[in-house]
């Protein structure tokens, strides 16, 4: 291959050097600028790494909890307590957040004839046979009896790593399927299943525990469960009134967030529209008015959305009003600036045309300026609407209410990560939907596909 490369002799080299000085004699800045720049950035990142204590924070992070929280996003845990009663039987106890109705038939938790319980973890080879005197732990078909005395539960000496003695209690780990904690007076069982428990109906509902087929049949041809209302209405009521998932509350909070973004952006647009004409140098021939209006926009824009949000939360109480006000004030400034720039860049010929037939100033602007800038105005407002739908969530968390606050509450308990996942899905859905709508409107207005 090298033979095909033309050789360059000295005079050629000289000629090329002369012809392209910018390639061969680059300034120091150009030659080493990138290297120095990336060196400085790397140094800065290293300094920040130590200043923010990133290393220790990651080392002290509770990563076991992290995997638990992540699993909670898409699966749920049933956590009954199997208490040893005085009469030699075992009783299953559920907390108030239990996922099963009273007296429900649970396929993995069966009472035995001797008064004990059998807990299966996936298959019969992995199970617990619980009685008050001993718990037989089956791992892959092999039994390891855990004996229970007055003051300790004791694991057998040959037990594998999945069975661990911890003081006077024994911990059994079945991996993803769950775990158990055997104590002297009870067994804490934790069983994990894929999906969201009782997402549609809570245990108090008449529709709880029914299969999709049964529900479809009830909705269409089945007898009315409650003579006063139709089954579909009944289902909707029970779904919205689901105590565990609080669908009605979450949906209304989501609507609040959407209203914040919509009304805030709309009012900002309506406010910025006339003022942009005052701020534009070519429309209003008063330097003082232009300058004052532009500084007003700068001020509104520069005060952080957070400041507006907290300020109005203090005065109006939590809810959508502070959210609307915060978005309105920041957007009025930002939109005003963009609008004013658009108006300053209009083609003057159309204005002159309308002016030449003797139209008053309002008409000149209406027919000479507005038709030119309206598509830009609307497309900018749509961009802001999209972006505000996202920022309204965060503003809400600060105190303005809406889905943001709900998210913060759900995360604060550290037990409702499934609900967090649900709300995140709703938010993603809404954001994508609105992106699509605003893209569609924009491309119709401006013409041609935009991203």
């Amino acid at each position, binding site marked *: 291959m090298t033979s095909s490369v033309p050789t360059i002799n000295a005079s050629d080299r000289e000629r090329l050097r002369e012809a392209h000085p910018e390639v061969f004699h680059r300034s120091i800045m150009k030659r080493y600028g990138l290297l120095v720049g990336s060196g400085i950035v790397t140094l*800065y*990142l290293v300094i*920040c790494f130590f*200043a*923010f*204590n*990133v290393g220790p*924070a990651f080392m002290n*992070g509770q*990563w076991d*909890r*992290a995997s638990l929280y992540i699993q909670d996003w898409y699966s749920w845990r049933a956590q009954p307590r199997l208490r040893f009663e005085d009469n030699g039987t075992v009783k299953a106890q559920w907390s108030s957040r239990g996922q099963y109705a009273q007296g429900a038939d649970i396929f993995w938790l069966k009472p035995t004839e001797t008064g004990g319980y059998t807990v299966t973890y996936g298959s019969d080879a992995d199970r617990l046979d619980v009685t008050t005197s001993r718990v037989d732990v089956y791992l892959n078909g092999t039994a390891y009896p855990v004996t229970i005395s007055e003051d300790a539960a004791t694991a057998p000496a040959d037990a594998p790593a999945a069975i661990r003695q911890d003081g006077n209690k024994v911990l059994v780990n079945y991996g993803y399927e769950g775990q158990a904690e055997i104590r002297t007076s009870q067994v804490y069982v934790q069983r994990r299943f894929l999906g969201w428990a009782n997402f549609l109906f809570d245990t108090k509902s008449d529709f709880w525990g029914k299969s999709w087929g049964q529900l479809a049949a009830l909705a269409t041809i089945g007898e009315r469960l409650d003579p006063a209302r139709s089954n579909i209405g009944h289902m909707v009521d029970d779904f919205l009134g689901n105590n565990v998932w609080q669908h009605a509350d979450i949906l*209304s909070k989501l*609507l*609040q967030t959407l209203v*914040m973004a*919509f*009304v805030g952006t*709309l009012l900002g647009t309506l406010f910025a529209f006339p003022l942009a004409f005052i701020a534009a140098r070519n429309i209003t021939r008063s330097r003082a008015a232009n300058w004052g209006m532009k500084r007003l926009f*700068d001020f509104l824009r*520069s*005060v*952080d959305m*957070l*400041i507006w949000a*907290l*300020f109005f939360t*203090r*005065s*109006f*109480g*939590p*809810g*959508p*009003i*502070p959210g609307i006000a915060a978005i309105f004030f920041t957007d009025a400034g*930002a939109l005003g*600036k963009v609008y004013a*720039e658009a108006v300053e860049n209009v083609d003057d010929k159309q204005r002159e045309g309308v002016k030449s037939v003797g139209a008053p100033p309002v008409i000149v602007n209406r027919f000479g300026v507005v038709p030119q800038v309206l598509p830009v105005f609307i497309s900018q407002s749509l*961009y*802001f609407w*999209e*972006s505000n739908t*996202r*920022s309204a*969530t*965060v*503003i809400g968390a*600060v*105190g303005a*209410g809406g889905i*943001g606050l709900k*998210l*913060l509450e759900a*995360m604060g308990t*550290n037990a409702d990560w499934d609900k*967090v996942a649900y709300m*995140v899905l709703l*938010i993603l859905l809404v954001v*994508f939907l609105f992106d699509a709508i605003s893209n569609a409107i924009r491309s119709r207005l401006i013409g041609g596909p935009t991203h």
Partner: protein
Amino acid sequence: MATISEQNNGSRRGELGPAASMMMQHYRQQLRTRRIYTAISIGIFLVVLFYSLQFANDANAGKFFERLPYFFDFIRSFVPDSPMEIFRAMFDLPSPYADGSLKYNYTADRHYITDTLYIPNFIYQLVITINIALVSTIIGSALAFLLCFFASTNLVGAGITRFVVRRIMEVLRAFPEIVIAGLLTAILSIGPIAAIIAITVHTIGALGKLFFEVVENSDMKPDEGLRAAGASWVERVRFAIVPQVLPNFVSYTLLRAEINVRASTIIGAVGGGGIGEVFRLAIGRDHAAKTYAIIILLLVSIIIIDQFSAWLRRRLIGQQSFEFGRGAA
């Protein structure tokens, strides 16, 4: 309009031939349809706006018109004891009103470097917030830079790669920042790292989208030249695409840095630390002087950052307005 119709129907009708009068009729018909559509859409808009406002008012803890008078009361009562107090709160100087309460304990928050030299607390927190924004902008833009070439039609033939990369960017962009921050706070305990990662994730998505649009609009002639010389894909990207798009990339990144400073204040208020948290506490506890001190600090620093980045962007790419890029915020 009246004059035109008079002309049309009146004595001078003869001046308008049959073709012209048909056109006139057609025009008026179109005008009418258009006006009806405009009226209907404005009507729908107003109805939606009205119900939205009503819904917002009902959902709010305090009702708008009930609270409005108190709103001005709040502003009136929310004044510092003296204008100097704002200055003292800002620089952690001892206050003459000090009574041991949190409201006037400015000096307690000093961050001492040496025995006598200290950084005032608010400025310290502001520096943290700005650094959070900078770090996440740098990391986020670097990752977006790496990703964006795989999302652009003119560089990647495989539709599936493009589709996957674009969807990843969209999810990163739309994923609520507070959830990432909240999850990481639960794992790593409270601190700026959660905020950094949350903002970084969002930055990757937002910048990635803008970046690949720039790449798609770049001139493909240099690429063809390199391809003809037998350059590999990486070499083509490095020497044909990157030099063209770099000024725009830097400009978008600077714009993003501005947005991220605001974002990190807000995330800070939710639990990420920094000036946002201090501000939330100050306004929540009615500490007027501290609140105004923080507002002034934030306002000044945001204006400085905006002006600096606007100046830098103008130097890089000339007078082109890049406010339009805010859409991907």
